[in-house]
């Protein structure tokens, strides 16, 4: 085995230094009844070339060569080559949490830069170093809101990603939280219904653009939550924030989301990163790592993990969260991608997505596929009626090499004929034309 270097001679010398006769003797504290008395029944070891061949064979049995318009929370945006190059730096890849700042200034500074970028994009004051994904940060936000308001209900817009709602419901049980869902009306959330539902709520979470791709009346939703004394929480797509307003500018107290669309591949669902940003006064309630700036004895600027008294390794059962390992490397990927894009590139990416999506909507409309929510503005994703069960439409289009999107009937009653179509800047006019032909065929 090439991952280890001990020779027989090394082993004998080491056993002699320890003062035991054999490796087996090192395990003498284990009671006989708990020892495994046979070899592990796992497949035989593979040499690197064999291993590569086996994994390549598995990878080849996944279908990734379709022209894809499938989004629904995970998107096919372009990942620049510099992102890959930075992530393969072993100093980043193989380090752990920067407990020893003198040896970790690189990753600490990168997290500080990431926190700054997330604050800029969301219009918030503080950001943590990342959460697991776009689902768990919603649960985190609920816990922050419960501690802040002392209330025990959270309100979720039904137009919030179903995966996110499911995770919040799972966590809510341990948190002692009740979850109330507010149905959509014509594709978006009604502020008055939201206000009524939020009367005793700690938080209101809505998504912008929402799961159907529609733009919510976000400022009205935030205001409705504040009226009810609940913390407004926006679940947003970083890639939209070059063209869409920052949640912090329309009254939200927290902004969260799935970071995958910036810097991460789809990778069958992970690993990706969730982001969580908030108003300054909530900083001591936030879960997870936070990096702060300070100085050494010589006055040199440096970065450290800070406010650690919130965290499990110090506060233990009174910590704000149990999170330890987070998603630093994926958040770094996001930072590198954002650094390349800059404000102009981010805005242009959003505009290209919007232009292509609008073109796709028009072309589909011409062929009799009307928008499911025609009154609503959209960003890069939209819901379209396909005139039959959308799952059948997906099957038929896939037979023509096009994955046309996500059947909303998988999660929503009454939307069996609705398909959710995502268009990123990687698609072209010709790609959209192929989509239309595949659905119309």
């Amino acid at each position, binding site marked *: *085995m090439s*991952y280890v270097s001990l020779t027989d001679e090394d082993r004998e010398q080491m056993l002699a230094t320890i003062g035991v006769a054999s*490796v087996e003797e090192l395990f003498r504290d284990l*009671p006989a009844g708990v020892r495994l008395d046979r070899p592990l029944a796992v497949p*035989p*070891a*593979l040499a*690197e070339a064999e291993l590569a061949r086996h*994994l390549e064979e598995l*990878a*080849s049995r*996944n279908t*990734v060569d379709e022209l894809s318009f499938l989004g629904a929370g995970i998107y096919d945006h372009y990942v620049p080559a510099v992102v890959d190059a*930075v992530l393969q*730096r072993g*100093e*980043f*890849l193989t*380090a*752990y949490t920067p407990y*020893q700042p003198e040896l*970790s200034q690189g990753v600490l500074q*990168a997290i*500080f*830069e990431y926190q*700054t970028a997330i604050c*800029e*994009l969301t219009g918030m004051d503080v*950001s943590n170093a*990342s959460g697991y994904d776009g689902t*768990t940060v919603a649960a985190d936000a609920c*816990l922050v809101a419960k501690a802040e308001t002392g209330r025990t209900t959270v309100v979720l817009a039904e137009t919030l990603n179903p995966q996110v709602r499911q995770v919040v419901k799972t*966590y809510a049980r*341990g948190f002692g939280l009740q979850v109330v869902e507010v149905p959509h009306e014509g594709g978006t959330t009604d502020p008055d219904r939201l206000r009524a539902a939020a009367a005793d709520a700690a938080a209101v979470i809505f998504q912008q653009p929402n799961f159907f791709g529609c733009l919510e009346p*976000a400022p009205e939703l935030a205001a409705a939550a504040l009226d009810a004394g609940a913390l407004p929480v926006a679940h947003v797509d970083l890639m939209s924030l*070059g063209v869409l*307003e920052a949640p912090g500018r329309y009254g939200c107290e927290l902004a969260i989301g799935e970071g995958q669309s910036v810097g991460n591949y789809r990778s*069958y*669902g*992970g*690993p990706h990163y969730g982001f969580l940003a908030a108003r300054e*006064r909530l900083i001591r309630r936030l879960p997870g790592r936070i990096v702060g700036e*300070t*100085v050494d004895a010589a006055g040199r600027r*440096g970065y*450290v993990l*800070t*406010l650690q*008294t919130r965290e499990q390794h110090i506060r233990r*059962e009174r910590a704000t969260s149990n999170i330890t390992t*987070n998603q630093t490397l*994926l958040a770094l990927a996001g930072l*590198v991608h*954002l650094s390349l*894009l800059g*404000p102009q590139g981010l805005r242009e990416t959003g505009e*290209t997505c919007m232009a*292509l999506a*609008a073109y796709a909507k028009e072309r589909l409309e011409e062929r009799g596929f009307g928008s499911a929510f025609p009154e609503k503005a959209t960003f890069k994703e939209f819901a379209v009626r396909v005139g039959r069960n959308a799952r059948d439409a997906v099957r038929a289009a896939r037979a023509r090499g096009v*994955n046309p999107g996500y059947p909303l009937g998988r999660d929503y009653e009454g939307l069996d004929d609705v398909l959710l179509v995502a268009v990123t800047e990687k698609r072209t006019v010709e790609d959209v034309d192929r989509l239309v032909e595949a659905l119309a065929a």
Partner: protein
Amino acid sequence: MTPLIYERSRPGRRGLEVPRPPLPVPPVPEGLARAAPPRLPEVAEPEVLRHFTELSTRNFGVDTGFYPLGSCTMKYNPRVNERLVGLPGFRDLHPLADDDAAQGALELEWRLGEILREITGLDAVSLQPAAGSQGELTGLLLMQAYFDERGEGERRRRVVIPDTAHGTNPASVTMAGYELTKVATDERGNLDLGDLRAKVDDTTAGLMLTNPSTLGLFEEAIDEIREIFHGAGALMYYDGANLNAVCGISRPGDMGFDIVHINLHKTFAQPHGGGGPGGGPIAVRAQLEPFLPVPVVVRDGDSYRLEYDRPKSIGKVRGYTGPFGVFVRSYAFMRAWGPDLRRMSEIAVLNANYLLARLRDAYDLPYDRLCMHEFVLSAKTLKREHGVSALDVAKRLMDFGFHPPTIYFPLVVPEALMIEPTETETKETLDAFADAMLAIAREAREEPELVHGAPHGCPVGRLDEVRAARTPVVRYAFPEAAAGASDPKPGATEPRPPTEKDDASARLV
């Protein structure tokens, strides 16, 4: 000092061109359009690469050198795994792809689950949890669901945890809505059985235990512990953080544990990534299987599918099936070792005992036993006699080119130094580290100021952490002229003034 990426920014520079098809851009409805652009850096591509390359040179990883950070299992991360995870068939697969389009991914997940079942000696697996601590929470929610179904959920509200436990254990207990019962450690470093017996009854839901413990010691009375908990009708949860000690040697299921999480980023070589990602799959006994998170990977003959129809499931703890890229790397690592995973653990334990043997006379050894994959020393005497603390020792190790061990944990050992060499290291490296530790112990006696002032060769000296916490600066302060999105908007809703609760939490820092 490396400038921040924001300090390298100049208006008009850009690092990426974006496709601009000849199509009109529809307007964003009024009130929803971005008013002021985010102040992202404006930097050309070469400078972006140089910036992050420079940052990387100010960071220490396993690729850089020896990283004996106890409890974290900083082992070699095989490079072939990075190539494999980047195969387009894995990298470009959408998590909501139909099962027929994801047969390779589903088979990989199923195979990984089978290997984890064998290593843990348990019956069923969920790969969904994103990290060990999320595995813990998931396991506790499973306990709750299991006891609820038996009508014991209201009564069994307490979870027992030793005083040596990782901080995640008590934090997870609180998050799951359980009450914590702490149990002491005896003079041999085992759970104190007398204390345990007095605290376990029919209000106990379960135990959370790391075995070997965070002291690097195997619980010698694991059979009695099992009898106490199973005798009281309670469940046993295994914190798999230290699984690298016992792969193929002893299985948590055979020890009596009912729920186990496995840290794929520790034992199974997912790179730690500067803090993540990780993977925290859980394995459970058959009676807990109905409650596992959805979806579950199921094999039907030669094909695989995701099953969602599990009426008793606790729900979902993370999106999709879990951190798939982590599964690719860990599966590849397991297949590279095969049944020899046992030898991996044997070498990890041999390396730790060798370092322990070389260091035991120079530092305090709180529990004089053979260790497993890690051990805990104490700088108590150095501190008392020469004023040199565990922190000083850790910082001085940097000058010798080593990453320090974990310090001040577990909490039951004063001035703790927790050392985990893993199976990766050569005997030469172990000897060089031992020599450095011995040299530092000598310096502590002869020139303590040298140790106090360490590190001497790092980009920064010891940083003022109190200042960082007292007046937190957690984002770049842009120059005044560059007004941006996160500055308060005139007329926008003002944040509420701080409440008494804010002040209370502020005082804790």
